[in-house]
């Protein structure tokens, strides 16, 4: 079970809690986690990554295990602690704006 923490605006959009538990088949990568998240909540398609290019939206970051993983390739394995469900995978919106 992968634990994903999503930001406030996406919670309201998905009508979910702050933490979403996901089953991810195969290797646990950012791409696989986001695939599973969007399959559970289709409304989130396009809100985290571009629907065509798959690129991370520029004001979002991905953190886990006290590391900024935003610039890791989407198919890079996530930390073991995330894959085992011991640590959450954070999707963070930039703290900015009025």
């Amino acid at each position: 079970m992968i634990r994903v923490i999503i930001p406030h605006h996406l919670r309201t959009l998905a009508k979910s809690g702050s933490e979403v538990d996901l089953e991810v088949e195969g290797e646990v990568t950012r791409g696989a986690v986001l695939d599973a998240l969007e399959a559970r909540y289709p409304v989130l398609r396009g809100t985290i990554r571009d629907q065509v290019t798959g690129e991370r939206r520029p004001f979002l970051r991905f953190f886990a295990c006290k590391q900024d993983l935003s610039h890791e390739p989407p198919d890079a394995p996530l930390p073991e602690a995330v894959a085992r469900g011991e640590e959450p995978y954070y999707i963070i919106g930039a703290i900015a704006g009025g």
Partner: protein
Amino acid sequence: MSGVRVLVGTKKGAFILTSDGKRDKWQIDGPLFGGWEIYHMKGSPVDPNRIYASQSSGWFGQVVHLSDDGGKSWQTVGNDFVYEGETGTHQWYDGTAHPWEFARVWHFEPSLTDVDTVYAGVEDAGIFRSRDGGLTWQELSGLRRHSTGSTWQPGAGGLCLHSIVLDANDENRIFVAISAAGAFRTDDGGKTWLPINQGLRSDYIPDPNAEVGHCVHRIAQHPANPQVLFMQKHWDVMRSDDAGASWYEISGNLPTDFGFVIDVNSNDPQTVYVVPIKSDSEHYPPEGKLRVYRSRSGGNEWEALTKGLPQKDCYVNVLRDAMAVDKMDPCGIYFGTTGGELYASANDGDSWAAIASTLPKILSVEVQTLP
């Protein structure tokens, strides 16, 4: 007609105001989509319970909402706006080539005849159409692929297609306006597009009389007089009597011919409304007085409408999609400000009242006249 419903998009959510035909008491519902920018909401002329809403965020991109019960409940529909084929480039602010990138939907224009057909004007400038109630979107790419497309440059708000006028008398004719490319018209349902900017003069571009490059802020048409278009340009209030083939200035005695909104009285095709704004840089009303100007002669002769509007210390703006008219008699006019005030007149503009005064910055105002 039983009443009116005003749809207000703001920087921090949407609000819906309703009233009976007297339009003197209002119920405010909202915020909907709290915290998100709602660039535009508009109801279907076929079924007023069908409303489309453009929800946008610099963080999370574009979301499209649809309601089938007049705004009581909402569902998300498609948000996949993909430019057709080779996207190419337009000019960036510094004149360099910049690839077309979808940013947001500025304006929805529901079909006049089919509840599930709706057009979307987007940034970077393009027009999309959905025939399935917003589930899927297809670009009418002939506009973006126009031979001048690579020369279009964004205005300060981005390269946005903000105005869509569906001709009530010819289903194949659509007018659009783009900041800062100008106005365009299709006569074949969106396959091919013609720049309609002859007569516009813009001293801020290298050739002031160029075919494209004009910063058109808004265009409006009265369905009973489809050959006549009114335009608020960056500078100049303009009129066309030949469906955009040529334009002439009707700024007349306005205190400034800069502004964003323009609209036409629903009961009289010759009665036009604008809100003059001081510019180039200030973008607030001249002398701190918020005045709607009305022409009853189709332009040139304008009268200031001030009753009920602040006449001192007012430094708000009225953005391009933030004025609308209802279909009651006398006509109701509604506009919203960047200060969060929503003003309404139920008597052709003779007097005004703030029907909401502490909303977030208002981005758009539409009104539905309910059966």
